[in-house]
């Protein structure tokens, strides 16, 4: 029996598969928020998604969207349409669908790690950071009242190999957008186009409270790197994060401000946890 879930978790949009991997000969049997899900594509290309019982019987048809290279659904009734990413319309960008990585932790821990700057020199050593350039300069994290999104701005970090196409170390500008609690996109200085930003996004699909399939994409100005090269670069980063993510205790994200001790560099995490608490998120938090 699936337990009652709160609207804050139900009413988000979740990726259940990339569009290219949901083929007509390859249905996706998976889970979302602890419930069985089946995604199928007909021979004519139409996608249907249904919630099922544990025994595999159809319970109901679910809303279904194909956007940004992914198949999206929801178990609730989102008050907002799926968040808009106008960068997908921009000419000259390449979309890299990086595949799915299963991580044994909560979606909140995954998003918070994605927003974290100060781990770069220690977890992504000589790629996204290097000692002794460990200082995190002040930045801003703010809930945008009109859009209901969390934005983290004015971030900068010294990075030896900021992107697959980077030719050397550089001071890199960052900003982050968290359009809903369990999805996040970062913008960082593009080595391929001066003044522009490359995008990297993660869409955790919470299978259970502390088990996620993380879907990840890059949308970049990069005419140099091979698809495999970019994929390898991104998956290498993610595997380094996974070692951390699966060894944090507790696995659920603690929302009590006294549970863990943040520093000023954790401003984004402080705001993120406060936001989740105010929204009434219960799934995947402690």
């Amino acid at each position, binding site marked *: 029996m699936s337990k009652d879930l709160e609207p804050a978790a139900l009413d988000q949009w979740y990726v259940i598969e990339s569009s290219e991997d949901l083929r007509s000969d390859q249905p996706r049997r998976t889970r979302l928020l602890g419930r069985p899900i089946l995604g199928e594509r007909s021979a004519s290309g139409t996608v249907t998604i249904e919630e099922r019982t544990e025994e595999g019987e159809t319970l109901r048809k679910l809303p279904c969207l194909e956007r940004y290279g992914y198949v999206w659904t929801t178990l609730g009734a989102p008050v907002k349409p799926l968040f808009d990413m106008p960068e997908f319309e921009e000419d000259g960008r390449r979309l890299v669908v990086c595949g799915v990585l299963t991580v044994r932790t909560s979606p909140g821990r995954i998003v918070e790690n994605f927003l974290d700057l100060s781990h770069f020199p220690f977890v992504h050593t000589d790629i996204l950071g290097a000692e002794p350039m460990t*200082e995190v300069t002040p930045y801003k994290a703010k809930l945008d009242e009109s859009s209901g999104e969390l934005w983290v701005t004015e971030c900068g970090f010294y990075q030896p190999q900021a992107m697959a196409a980077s030719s050397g170390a550089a001071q890199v500008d960052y900003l982050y957008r968290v359009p809903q609690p369990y999805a996040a996109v970062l913008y960082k200085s593009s080595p391929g186009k001066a003044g522009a930003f490359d995008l990297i996004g993660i869409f955790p699909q919470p299978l259970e409270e502390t088990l996620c399939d993380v879907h990840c994409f890059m949308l970049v100005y990069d005419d140099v790197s091979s698809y495999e090269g970019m994929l390898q670069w991104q998956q290498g980063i993610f595997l380094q994060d996974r070692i951390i993510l699966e060894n944090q205790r507790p696995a659920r994200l603690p929302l009590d401000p006294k549970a863990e001790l943040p*520093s000023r560099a954790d401003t984004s995490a402080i705001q993120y946890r406060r936001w989740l608490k105010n929204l009434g998120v219960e799934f995947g938090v402690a």
Partner: protein
Amino acid sequence: MSETRQDWHAVAGMSDLPAGTARAVTLLGEDIALWRGESGSAQAWRNQCPHRGMRLSFGQVRGDRLSCRYHGWQFDTAAQCKFMPAHRKISPPASVCVPSYGCRESGGLIWIRLAGDGDGFEDTAAAGDTQADALFCKSIFVDGSLETLADRLVGAYFPPASRALEAMPGAGFEGEVLDHGRGADESHAVVAWRRRGREPEEAFSTSYHGMRPARSVIRVVAKTEDEPPEALMLALQAMTERRTGVHLATQSSGNDETDRQRRLYFGRWARRLRWFLEHPEAPFDGFRPWT
């Protein structure tokens, strides 16, 4: 298991924690980071960084500090945070520290107590096994509770450890077990024993040291007239209700090559012991640990 948090428990061999390393151990269901600085003694901490909950056993030992794998926060041997790399010029407040446990080294093993301060080690049976010449041999990890394993190890019928001593090469224990029985207070067993080809003249005494927690330290001492007594110690670690560590130490011979042989011998024996402990249905006669 709560009352045993006050007791000292063996969790690892001293030589299994070289200087500059960190590892995780489990005791009474608690996840513990065990580490040793470049110059210092072993430290046992709660395995959770106060910053973002990362297990500190994944950390890097830098000199006499443990540096968290996630954000590089550095903690000194007083478990106090001394450096946050994201704020290089700020001294961390005193409130940033890791809960630590009492930790001592004795008899070739590392001992921890989860509750109470570091005092009282001398009063425990663990301290009774202190040997300057202790030789840690091997740790095995076995399915089953400490109580079950203790029963199987030192039950009324047989202390397998004495059989190991019996065949311990180079230690003057070639012989056979003749008989065994329990002491009146059930705190020890006596094993009559003789060397092959000689009259019964000597005995093993197996004592259940460490009455708190009951029978967690088992000591087999061979008493002989013409040689110094030799001992084998089995220290049991209640990891969880269903899993138990057994740490094996004996005495050093003072000779490196002989010690190496002893470790090899007891290592092999310990692997067979694990099989025996995990197969309660196996008849004991079938268990010949030294073969």
